[in-house]
């Protein structure tokens, strides 16, 4: 996801268009924040200022507000193709500096187009998919096409998803645009017009908007808006499309959801699907690093640490590789034992978590290899690692991690299955079965959320009145329970603790009294009989028992006060199918207690202090 914006105005209609664009970009920062840039046309030249980093940092270096010109486009980036860098930041220009372009989306056939263009002598400055469009436009301009025709020709070659805005020097007061699958909105002003990825970006300047639809192309000038269908050439009647926004539309970023967290919980099927699609050869490299390592350490903090415990389970139980999981801030205990040949797997959503980064540096210093799992391309931890496996969850705005956890688990399982294949620790047919299950996971997660949302909401009605809760599981259920308890603590501020169910008898059960809520993670594995015993034990003490159970586990329904039935699947994918239910439970409990789940008190999304 990226954010794009553009404005074109009559001389003097807006004071400092570049400053306005910078402010618009700040509102679009939720769509991506790893690099930023803008371009304008001034005195027959294209001016580009761009760089890696957050808007505020790059602005300090580049002084965006000082960019002259009345036609300006801007971009805030979330890297998909090419790491965040000054060169890969948008806008992108062609060889002759006559075109500048910003793009949100993924151009699927860019490699093919790039090869053709290189063959024609075009020189590329970046590794992005976007740059091909700038060169394509140049190609047609050089063939003698008029700017708008050249733009349309170029777009007709592009496959994939896009919202594109382009400026061309020969028409200094025009911004050309095209849209497919990525959002694009036009804001109509008096003597100026805007284009942007969402409405709030320009809402303080105009409240009259037109939503651009898929396969539409056109241009804006300070006084005119033109839209037509790319294929049919049918011109859009703007009077039918125009809408007036009479209130502050703060919701755009949340796409119909009341909170980012709920949006991100619901986005998990998609995030998982994209992560599966994004799995590449790095999985095999990672698997090789693991099987060739002397010892495997796993480190992370918070939710990522729970993903680390899942990895610990996978490596031991699937690939027969012993691991040492450690909480990142506690790394110092281990450093003396670290030697050449050891491997540290560091998991961090942001790739900037300071505790994890410190552990990486210390291990590296002592000769360990580093394998990172991260959601942010080329962030600090991936940069300092030997290899990184990326999740494709997209930006996560809610402070409580949701989709990044499940996607972390997914890449872990894919990696461990590869390792098991390489070291022959698991039957080929079993591996194939599990891969099939993995492929189906996004759909199972979707179905589970759809089927249970109301039921989880009704359980939250009970939970939100409690002050304390236990989460119990066995085996792979333990990290799931820990993640569930963490979510409830983080956003609903309810004291929650997770234990291996067998441990409850060794202490925690002393606190259990009438109606004390205990949630059980019951998986379809070898522990089910034992955990049934644990449930009965809690029931005997009049605890309020809630269970997430495989749908055919009839005997559990009788002893549980509330049971949530999860569709049958291999227990190894449970962290991805069970956790969304626990996320929803925490979410609805928080909302019922009147808290904002997106902004839990005392917490930050990325922890950058030790």
């Amino acid at each position: 996801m990226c954010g794009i914006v553009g404005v074109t105005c009559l001389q003097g209609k807006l004071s400092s268009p570049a400053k306005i664009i910078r402010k618009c970009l700040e509102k679009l920062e939720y769509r991506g924040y790893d690099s930023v840039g803008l371009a304008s046309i001034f005195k027959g030249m294209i001016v580009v200022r761009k760089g890696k980093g957050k808007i505020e940092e790059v602005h300090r270096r580049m002084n965006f507000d000082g960019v002259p010109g009345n036609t300006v486009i801007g971009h805030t980036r979330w890297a998909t193709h090419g790491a965040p860098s000054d060169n890969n930041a948008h806008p992108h220009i062609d060889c002759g500096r006559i075109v500048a372009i910003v793009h949100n989306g993924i151009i699927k056939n860019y490699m093919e187009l790039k090869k053709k263009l290189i063959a024609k002598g075009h020189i590329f400055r970046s590794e992005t998919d976007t740059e091909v469009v700038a060169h394509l436009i140049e190609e047609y301009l050089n063939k003698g096409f008029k700017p708008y025709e050249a733009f349309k020709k170029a777009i007709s070659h592009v496959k994939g998803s896009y919202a594109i805005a382009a400026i061309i020097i020969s028409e200094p007061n025009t911004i050309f645009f095209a849209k497919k699958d990525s959002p694009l909105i036009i804001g109509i002003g008096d003597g100026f017009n805007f284009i942007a990825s969402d409405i709030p970006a320009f809402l303080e300047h105009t409240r009259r908007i037109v939503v651009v639809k898929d396969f539409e192309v056109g241009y804006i000038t300070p006084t005119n808006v033109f839209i037509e269908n790319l294929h049919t050439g049918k011109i859009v009647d703007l009077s039918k499309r125009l809408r007036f926004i009479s209130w502050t539309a703060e919701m755009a970023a949340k796409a119909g959801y009341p909170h980012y967290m709920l949006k991100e919980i619901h986005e998990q099927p998609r995030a998982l699907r994209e992560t599966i699609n994004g799995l590449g050869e790095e999985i095999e490299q990672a698997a090789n690093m693991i099987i060739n390592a002397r010892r495997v350490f796993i480190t992370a903090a918070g939710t990522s640490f729970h993903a680390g415990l899942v990895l610990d389970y996978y490596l031991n139980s699937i690939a027969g590789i012993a691991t040492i999981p450690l909480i990142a801030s506690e790394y110092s205990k281990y450093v003396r034992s670290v030697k050449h040949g050891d491997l540290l797997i560091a998991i961090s959503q942001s790739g900037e978590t300071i505790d994890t980064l410190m552990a990486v540096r210390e291990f590296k210093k002592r000769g360990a290899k580093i394998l990172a799992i991260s959601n942010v391309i080329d962030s600090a931890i991936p940069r300092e690692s030997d290899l990184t496996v990326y999740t494709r969850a997209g930006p996560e705005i809610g402070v409580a991690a949701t989709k990044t956890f499940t996607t972390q688990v997914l890449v872990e399982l894919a990696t461990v299955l590869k390792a098991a294949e390489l070291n022959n620790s698991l039957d080929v047919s079993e591996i194939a079965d599990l891969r099939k299950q993995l492929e189906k996971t996004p759909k199972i997660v979707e179905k589970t959320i759809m089927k249970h949302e109301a039921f989880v909401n009704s359980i939250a009605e009970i939970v939100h009145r409690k002050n304390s809760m236990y989460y119990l599981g066995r085996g792979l259920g333990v990290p799931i329970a820990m993640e569930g308890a963490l979510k409830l603590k983080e956003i609903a501020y309810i004291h929650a603790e997770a234990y291996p169910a067998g441990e409850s008898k060794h202490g925690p059960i002393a606190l259990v009294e009438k109606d004390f809520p205990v949630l059980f993670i019951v998986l379809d594995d070898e522990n089910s009989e034992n955990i049934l015993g644990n449930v009965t034990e809690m029931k005997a003490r009049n605890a309020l028992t809630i269970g997430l159970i495989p749908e055919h586990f009839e005997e559990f329904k009788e002893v549980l006060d509330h049971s949530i039935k999860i569709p049958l699947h291999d227990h190894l994918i449970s962290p991805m199918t069970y956790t969304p239910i626990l996320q929803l439970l925490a979410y609805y409990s928080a909302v019922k207690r009147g808290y904002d789940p997106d902004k839990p008190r005392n917490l930050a999304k990325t922890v950058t202090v030790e």
Partner: protein
Amino acid sequence: MFQYRLKAVVLAGGRGERLKPITDCMPKSMVRIVGKPVIDYVLEGLSKLPLDEIIVVLSHKKLAKYVEEKWGRTLSITIVYQKGKGIDAAILSAKDLIRSPNFVLAYGDIVVNPKAYIRTLETHINSGAEASMLLSPKLDVESYGVAYISENKIVSISEKPVPEKAESTLAVAGIFVLPSTFLNYVEEHGFTEALNMLAKEYTVVPSFWEDWWVDIGYPWDILKANEYVLRDLRFSHISSKATISSKAVIEGPLIIDDEAEISHYAVIKGPAYIGKNSFIGDHCLIREYTSVEENVIVGAFSEVKHSSIQPNVTVSSYNYIGDTVIGESSVLGPHTVTLNILPSGVKVSRLHPVRVKGKLLTKLGAIIGCNVYIGANSTLFAGSIIKSHEKIKPHSIIMQQRSTL
């Protein structure tokens, strides 16, 4: 040069079969929830949207008169009488008046925070989709339409699915933004199928409602709506025109409306509502989530909890009224008692058991129609339904239950 015109259609017609006998004397949308008819909750929500016309489809003159008087000056209201039965007929009654490319469709029997209307339209505008609809997680899928979402788009709608087979628990929450072509689909295929066709042909995006939401379908939905509205009270509101004895005990949060009178030693434990011109007699106990609507008399020594007393009702002395709905203009004689715990095993759609001291109990008192007269010393068993205009002799024991219970 440009003008964006958006209209809204409110479906407030029909007889309210499932709400009988409460709706025998008043249309469904006129049922009072904490001092206001249901239609006010809908129009209040719609009044927050940039609409240039609200078409109210209805069947009762009484409702038309009320809507015109209450909202006619502040909103541009057009009244249309419903031709034919059912939701299809209701929507199509407004067809010729909807001349905008898109329109807002709102059910006339929904009680929800006005923000739900804003969110639905915002989602629509921001997404650029052809249609959007509000969804709310609901347990009793068998009494709602449910929507299945994939990739943040609604892919299918099923009407009142069997719970075990339901693929989704996200209920269609009665607020939509639809393209006018939808009306043609309704004409040919009926409402639910039209929604499915819309989902197939166009992009329909969900708008998500995480807070409470009540569709006034069954009499006990009235109690639920009262409970939610009253639970949201942050402070008490006592009219300067109300008369409250210095010896009465008032615990908030509650609303005591104009000209209401609270007599000596009455105890009111909020959250509760005492309507306009109502009288609460000496030594009464009015407990949580009770809504006493306008012109009601509660006689001395009576206890009322979690109940809705519709306008012009008289509850005589020494009554116990729990989890009960009393229809308009009924009279309950002295010492009327409502029992309010349903026998275990009785399942009622949209009525959920509550945990009381470790036990799961389903609570429902009596559902009393309008213009009923109940003689002194009568006992009404849990879940009793008293038909409108019925006269019940003193010392009666009523056990009749509706078949749907």
